[in-house]
């Protein structure tokens, strides 16, 4: 008889709440009349993400030193719970942005169900404590995202985006899986802690395994040179999906990356810090240079997300508790800015019924002052200007890197920030400094749709972006508690 492990339902509760919301959304969309499907799905998904977030907060409060639950398959620590909070926050925001998206009503139940399931997968992924749960979580949320990207087949490029993501994402997953297999083959262990104990640094198989796992994470975090899918997928997917993906996937991938590297491969730090510093540099260079020449705002934001991955990797390279704190802090304003920026793009897209480019953003800031100022704030935040959390995030990451002796990486980061100003401020220029007349853009006609939910989402994003600057202390305290779960010597 196979021994049944003790299941700690409490620690799994955020995941279960999201799954329950997804199941209900699927079931109810069959029963409720057509006109109520959208509202039902949205309410259930919001409730799911909110409940999961609240539960994660409770577990965060009640967790102290990390413990291993459910047959040592998942960890109960604040590191994972902090990430779950972020994923749930991004989820709620994504639902707000999704609500008024023009989408055929017949798949709307599935849309919200998949969104919640993807969230559940990410929440599970960040808790992974062994190679099996790691891969399970990864595929769980990835498959949901593949479908979400292709869900709106009426958008040109949506299906293409889904397929591209599927093919390249599957390649990334396969690389991670192969790497895991090599690590397991070399150490004979699945649990991260046990791997650290049994690690053979001079074993070529083992080192190859670590390298392949890094590559796999690189795909998910869209770090260059594993970013090729990012611009196409971000551009082709429905904008709310892009918003969710850009924020939540990055949280999950980077948080897990740091955990695996620190817990399972602490002895190999001299190898993976160097490798990651190269990946970070390449991401910063490719992301920023490619973003310079983009006309489409979604593509530009996609490359900006590659460059942000580079900044966050610097925090991992620092390989210190300060670095871990910097990563966790960075993710907060980053998620808000990313979801917020895509939300504004979505609003413009619905107004124009065409993909948003830098040209057809002209004058948007004067036409819709609130969304204009919000977009302005998000761009300033991405560019690392003060009065937004984006500035402190960069400051923190640079401090961590400098503190660990990676001065050249700090200088690369500063150079990348300088280059990035051109395209971030290019958006501000388009919003305020060019007139639609001069560019001969036909007016959209009629007053733009009033979208209370989307605007609420944008307000929340602005609040987090600016609030994380002023209320840095409580956030950093949270990050400190979370980072204490990761062993640094």
């Amino acid at each position, binding site marked *: 008889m196979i021994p049944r492990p003790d299941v700690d339902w409490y620690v799994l509760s955020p995941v279960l709440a999201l799954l329950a919301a997804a199941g209900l959304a699927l079931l109810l969309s069959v029963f409720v009349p057509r006109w109520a499907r959208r509202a039902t799905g949205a309410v259930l998904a919001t409730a799911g993400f909110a409940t999961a977030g609240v539960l994660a907060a409770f577990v965060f409060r009640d967790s102290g030193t990390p413990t291993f639950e459910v047959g040592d398959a998942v960890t109960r620590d604040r590191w994972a719970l902090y990430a779950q909070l972020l994923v749930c926050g991004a989820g709620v925001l994504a639902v707000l942005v999704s609500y008024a998206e023009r989408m055929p009503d017949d798949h709307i139940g599935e849309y919200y169900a998949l969104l919640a399931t993807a969230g559940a997968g990410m929440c599970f992924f960040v808790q992974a404590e062994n190679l099996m749960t790691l891969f399970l979580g990864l595929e769980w949320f990835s498959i949901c995202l593949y479908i979400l990207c292709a869900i709106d087949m009426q958008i040109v490029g949506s299906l293409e985006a889904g397929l591209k993501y599927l093919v390249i994402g599957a390649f990334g997953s396969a690389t991670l899986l192969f790497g895991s297999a090599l690590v397991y083959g070399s150490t004979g262990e699945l649990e991260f802690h046990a791997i650290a104990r049994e690690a053979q640094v001079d074993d070529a198989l083992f080192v190859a395994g670590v390298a392949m796992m890094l590559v796999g994470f690189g795909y998910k975090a869209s770090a260059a040179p594993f970013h090729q899918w990012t611009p196409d997928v971000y551009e082709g997917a429905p904008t709310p999906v892009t918003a969710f993906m850009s924020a939540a996937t990055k949280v999950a991938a980077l948080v897990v990356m740091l955990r695996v590297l620190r817990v399972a491969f602490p002895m190999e730090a001299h190898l993976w810090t160097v490798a990651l510093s190269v990946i970070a540099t390449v991401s910063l260079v490719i992301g920023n240079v490619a973003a310079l020449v983009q006309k489409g705002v979604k593509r530009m934001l996609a490359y900006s997300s590659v460059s942000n991955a580079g900044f966050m990797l610097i925090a991992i390279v620092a390989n210190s508790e*300060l670095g871990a*704190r910097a990563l966790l802090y960075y993710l907060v304003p980053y998620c808000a800015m990313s979801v917020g920026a895509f939300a504004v793009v979505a609003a413009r897209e619905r107004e124009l019924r065409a993909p948003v480019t830098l040209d057809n953003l002209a004058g948007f800031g*004067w036409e819709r002052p609130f969304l204009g100022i919000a977009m302005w704030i998000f761009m*300033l935040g991405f560019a690392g*200007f*003060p*009065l937004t959390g984006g*500035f402190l995030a960069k*400051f923190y990451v*640079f*401090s961590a890197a*400098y*503190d660990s002796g990676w*001065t050249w990486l*700090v*200088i690369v980061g*500063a*150079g990348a*920030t*300088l280059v990035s*100003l*051109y395209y971030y*401020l290019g958006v*501000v*220029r388009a919003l*305020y*400094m060019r007139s639609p007349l001069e560019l001969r853009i036909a007016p959209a006609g009629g007053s733009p749709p009033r979208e209370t939910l989307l605007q609420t989402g944008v307000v929340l994003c602005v609040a987090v972006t600016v609030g994380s600057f002023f209320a*840095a*202390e409580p956030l*950093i305290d949270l990050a*400190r508690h979370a980072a204490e779960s990761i062993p640094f010597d």
Partner: protein
Amino acid sequence: MDDWLTSILIFLPVAGAFLCMLVPLERFVVGSLALLVALVEVGFWIESVIRFDFGAGLQFEQQVTWFSDLNVSYHVGLFGFSLWLVGLTTVVVAAAIAYAFWTGRDRARAYYPLLLLLLGATVGVFSSQDLLLFYVFFEAMLIPLYVLVGVWGGAGRLRATFLIIAYTMAGSLLMLVAIIALGLTHGTFDLIDSGTSDSSWIFLGFVAAFAVKAPLFPFHAWLPEAYREAPPEVAAVLSGVISKAAAFGFLRIAIPKFPGPTDDFRIVILTLAAVGLVYGSLLAFRAPDVRGVIAYSSLAQMGLITLGLFAGNDLGYDGAVLQMVVHGLVSATLFLLAGGIERRAATGELLLVGGMARGRPILATMLMTTGVIALAVPGSSAFAGEFLILAGVFDRHWLYAAIGAAAIVLAAMYMLRLISAVLHRERGSAVSDAALDLRPAELGFLVPLVGLLLALSVWPAAVSEHSFAGDDASVVVQQNFRAAGR
């Protein structure tokens, strides 16, 4: 220790900005409200002058922990010289707002808030006592400036904003790296608590930011574009006040925190400053338009101020602070006058304007008075500042003083050329008889500026001898502002 006055000076304009932006008001009401806020701000500054004890160091201090992790705090307070710079800022921005109100800028609910935010950020720069806070305000100045030039500027505004951002951010990011390095080495970002450093690299990071912002030769390529394309009142703030933030940075951070590197690089910086002084003066002499003359004279004057700062003695520091205030007032007045001239002639080309003195006695008087002060005629406040600076730098090497003295002659040449090209000669083709003399409303913001200049001419010691606690500026700077700190 916990005095709200500095914080009020910083946040009153910010609050005013939000009020102007969020409450839907008529253009006229928004303008009056902004002007009122600016005048109340001047009032608070006068209150701080009255309460200021010029014998003591840092005052009106307030400190609140921002994040304890890296020992960063919201720490503000005023020294004597920062008090004068804050005063300069409030007065010049108030005049700029009055000018904007008079010309009736469109999109008022965006324009005035941005000017007020600029005011708050600049006051913040002059009063912050924490490195990171300093950087935050230093960058925060750039955001409103970018939009003010980019939206309300002239035809070449997009290129001008690009140059401003590219240059200043390149310098600023180097400063950010330097700040991180300095702060982590000392374990605190507090300016009062942190000690000195011997690292040339960190020093150069700071110098890069300040040299671009001032600007010093050869980092000035953004300056003519920015000063020409910006609206006149923004150019007034830019050259009158924002450039002083750089000089302040030299005085408050670069020189006291890095005594060793300051000595090592003194000759380089003094040489660049002297070259900038002469080169700027020559360019000003050749500039084809009113604003070009003022812009390049600003480059020259910043070189002179830097000469004073890096002379490294009492005379140099006192003279530099005095000259910062005087030049701030002079160039702000000149830019506002240039704006008035451009409104009347629709151009600032020196070949097209001319003969404006005839029938416009008030304009002639104002331009003449300001111009004569700007060329440092003996007895003027600018003369006092320049004399102190030259006397100070003479101690370093007589050659700098000789170059500086020669530059005063050049200043006379370009200012007199400007005055004669605008006021005298034959009537320019762009000047019609219908163009009016200065209106009473214009005098409303020009007379206070010129009045302050005349007052400083009578009593320059008001600034030069009340900037540093005690008598010896060099001792205060050498002690890294510490003895005076608490």
